[in-house]
């Protein structure tokens, strides 16, 4: 849905950030104008795929339907989804994302290893909005 935030299919799926050529800082969501490190003289920002796997920093869920601009079908009963904040060791940052369908807070602990997978945020007759999701690596989902 957001241009250039992720790419690829299946095992090749990756979140896309950018990396500063001068200081190596990684940005997600991607930063395409100026490096935001105040100590950096400023380099070129180059597209950089992020690590596929990380560890749970924390997690929660949304038991009530969020307001717009989140898109949901109000004709259907609300099904809570899980949110996971994931620490990526190589990039030294934390990325928030929805969990893959079926993953609940009961499946998670802080420190659990998860991997990024492609997912569907919402779809209607005309459009499918794709996104990234986190899934425990040992869950066999």
């Amino acid at each position: 849905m957001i241009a250039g935030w992720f790419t690829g299919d299946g095992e090749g799926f990756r979140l896309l950030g950018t990396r500063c050529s001068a200081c190596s800082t990684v940005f997600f969501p991607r930063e395409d104008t100026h490096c935001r490190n105040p100590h950096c003289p400023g380099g070129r920002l180059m597209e950089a795929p992020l690590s596929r796997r990380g560890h749970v920093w924390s997690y929660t869920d949304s038991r009530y339907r969020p307001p717009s601009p989140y898109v949901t079908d109000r004709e259907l009963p609300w099904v809570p989804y899980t949110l996971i904040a994931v620490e990526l060791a190589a990039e030294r940052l934390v990325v928030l994302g929805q969990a893959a369908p079926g993953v609940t807070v009961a499946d998670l602990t802080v420190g659990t290893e998860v991997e990024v997978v492609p997912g569907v945020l919402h779809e209607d007759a005309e459009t499918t909005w794709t996104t990234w999701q986190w899934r425990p690596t040992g869950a066999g989902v």
Partner: protein
Amino acid sequence: MTGDVAVLGAGMHPWGKWGRSFVEYGVTAARAALADAGLEWRDIGSVVGADTVRGGYPGYVAGATFAKALGWQGTRVTSVYAACASGAQAIATARAQILAGLADVVLVVGADAAPKGFFRPAGGDRPDDPDWLRFRVLGATNPTYFGLYARRRMAVHGDTLEDFAQVKVKNAALGARNAYARYRRAVTAEEVAASAVVADPLRLLDICATSDGGAALVLAGLDFARRHGAGDAVRIRAVSTVTPHFPNTVLDLPDIATDSAVAVSPAPETFRESIARAAYEEAGVGPEDLSLAEVYDLSTALELQWYEDLGLCGAGEAVKLLRDGSTAPGGRIPVNPSGGLASFGEAVPAQAIAQVCELTWQLRGAAGDRQIPGARVGMAVNQGLFGHGSAVVAVR
């Protein structure tokens, strides 16, 4: 101290869901603050409004709206938007004008009529706005962030749901004594546990509501205060409005990710800790000097986090402080004697101003049956969306 300004007046409109205009709440609070100061609106040389959204271009208004409602009188006017820190920045602006000699006496007003349910970003497709993105891409409401922080504390420090509930029990008991609070009823731990989960692990009674409300202050230079016969007034000694330092490594509203620490090691202190430290340094006081603190308890778990961020205890020791009664009335450092957001709910531009109203009444010894005896130094802290710091130190 040269940085001091006097608080001549404090006033509020009761908080709740009243269904009326923010203008009415703000003007009611302003008139109360003026009456408390013993001044007329015509005496005011500058009005600073903490902004809210009103339909119509440009939408974010406050200073001139209140000035018009009180009656145009040609005063200097300023409007300030900094999300939850709007009220603190309004106070900072008023103080700067006074210290710069631009105005002798300034009226600061914040008021809001909050929407029902979750806060949401302004309308339209705005993918360049992080606040819009987190809703559109993740459905990440404010309570989901509070849930993430609460789970993290449980995992790292061993806090429990019962500990979180005790924060609500403490604050509700205090809010029951505050005529301006929306919720004025004691709450039991059982009631917290029985309320619906909103964002795991937090329940409805762990999370602050959205509310209507208004708060106002009349601030003046010390010379004006003395001429006015208020030389012993409560004084504001510091206002911290600092930003975070890069890399900000704690996932924070409204961001989808943290900064990367690949190139620069994180500062030894977090953003919230730096907000408090800047205020302590400017005021020349430390946590050991505080008589009370008003903290932004968006959730019960977040109040505990603030204990550590304010330096009231070490990392992971907040629950110990809560359990031994240190942060309750009669304890070493009572926190949220007003009842906090747990009792007021959130009226964004008014809240930081309301916190300073409470500090003022406590430091005057005029807080009725929630008075902290002998209060001399108070601190109020919150944090505004998009990296706005907010802390105020007031002294008697």
